[in-house]
């Protein structure tokens, strides 16, 4: 079963990271899921693949009533992001899935009806969770062609999807980045290969450098906090991406 860790709390406003499952089969990539709660409702960010649903569900249920989930935010269309969609909809068929307009007719292959999907335009949009305004921030081509991060300006948390992701060895399973230089070695190959556009990367770096961010939370690997957030943005800005030696 995965474990949960509350990384921000102010009254009912919480960010919960759902991470690390020692029982997960090795052939499945490890993923982080995040739950944002406010006023008794929840938004689940990148709920994960169908095969890890039992581990995510059981961890989430220790913190929050799954039937009180108001929606799902899918950063992009990959199966490790949201192939569990149909299973989550079992708990609340009225639940909405916020996703780039680009993928709104592709993701229904994982489940849901026409009413399930809220299309996010390319420029992004605000998503309200019981009055808490969350911002879908464009991150196109990083790595998906229709890709969004989610920013909470009150908590100063940016859910960055695959940006900042690191494929860590099992010996390094801390929730937060502890040694940036050592950590980033596990992120470099991933970013060079998965991020498709230097131009898109530059725009993203310029955009997020202007935001107040205490924690940058990727979908794989450890969370960047404090000064490591800016360190990561600077590192990413310098990195040449979209290259493969083949």
């Amino acid at each position, binding site marked *: 079963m995965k474990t949960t860790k509350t990384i921000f709390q102010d009254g009912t406003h919480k960010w919960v990271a759902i991470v690390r499952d020692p029982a997960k089969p090795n052939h499945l990539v490890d993923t982080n899921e995040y739950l944002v709660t406010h006023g008794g409702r929840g938004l689940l960010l990148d709920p994960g693949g*169908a095969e890890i*649903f*039992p581990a995510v*569900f*059981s961890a989430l*249920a220790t913190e929050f009533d*799954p039937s009180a989930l108001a929606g799902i935010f899918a950063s992009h269309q990959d199966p490790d992001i949201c192939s569990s969609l149909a*299973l989550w909809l*079992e*708990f609340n068929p009225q639940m909405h899935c916020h996703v780039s307009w680009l993928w709104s007719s592709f993701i229904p292959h994982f489940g849901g009806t026409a009413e399930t999907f809220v299309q996010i335009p390319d420029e992004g949009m605000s998503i309200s969770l019981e009055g808490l305004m969350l911002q879908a921030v464009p991150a196109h081509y990083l790595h998906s062609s229709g890709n969004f991060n989610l920013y909470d300006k009150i908590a100063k948390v940016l859910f960055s999807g695959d940006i900042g992701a690191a494929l860590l060895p099992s010996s390094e399973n801390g929730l937060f980045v502890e040694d940036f230089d050592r950590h980033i070695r596990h992120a470099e190959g991933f970013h060079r290969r998965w991020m498709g556009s230097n131009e898109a990367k530059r725009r993203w770096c310029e955009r997020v450098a202007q935001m107040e961010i205490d924690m940058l939370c990727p979908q794989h690997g450890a969370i960047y906090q404090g000064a490591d957030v800016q360190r990561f943005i600077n590192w990413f800005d310098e990195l040449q991406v979209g290259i493969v030696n083949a």
Partner: protein
Amino acid sequence: MTTEQVAQTGIDLLRIVRINEEIKRVVAVSFKINIMALNAIFLAKRAGTAARGFAVLSNEFRSFSEELRSSMAALTSMVYSCVNEVSMVLQEMRFTRLLQEASQLSSHASLAPMLRRRGLENVTHQENLARLRSQLRRALDDAFQMVELGGVLAKSAKIEAAYGQSFAASLSQVSGEFDHIVEEIRASLESLRRSAFFAGN
């Protein structure tokens, strides 16, 4: 939900796909019969009164090929329904397995009623599949009977060909081809009727 049940449903899907491939083969052959019947009608006209009986049988053959095609179209539609139902059962099984795993890890109250509902839905899908399976079997039996009659037509055409005087050799060749093709279809349908899909195991 056992691993054996999931494996069995996967095997069912494979079997139904094979049935579909065999039906496609029969449909292709039935087009061939239609063209052969047209040629036989023209040949009988040229042969005149000596091949009057053969001409009647050729017309019957043409009707037979059309009936065979519509019978195969109905079978194809039933096969698609079976594929759809088997796919639903496979998806249901996967989701039920994942929800069962979740219920082993969590005691959340919503899981038990959800699993009960899924169990009922699974029974409904299994019943639908059993109904479709038996409909398909009956339709195959009907098609088989029709082809047996086609065989009788082919044998009669062989006899009539012998009265074709100077056209007897050509008519005999055509009737022999009819007989060969009908036998081919009969063998295909016979193998389909014996498919383990209908035994449900």
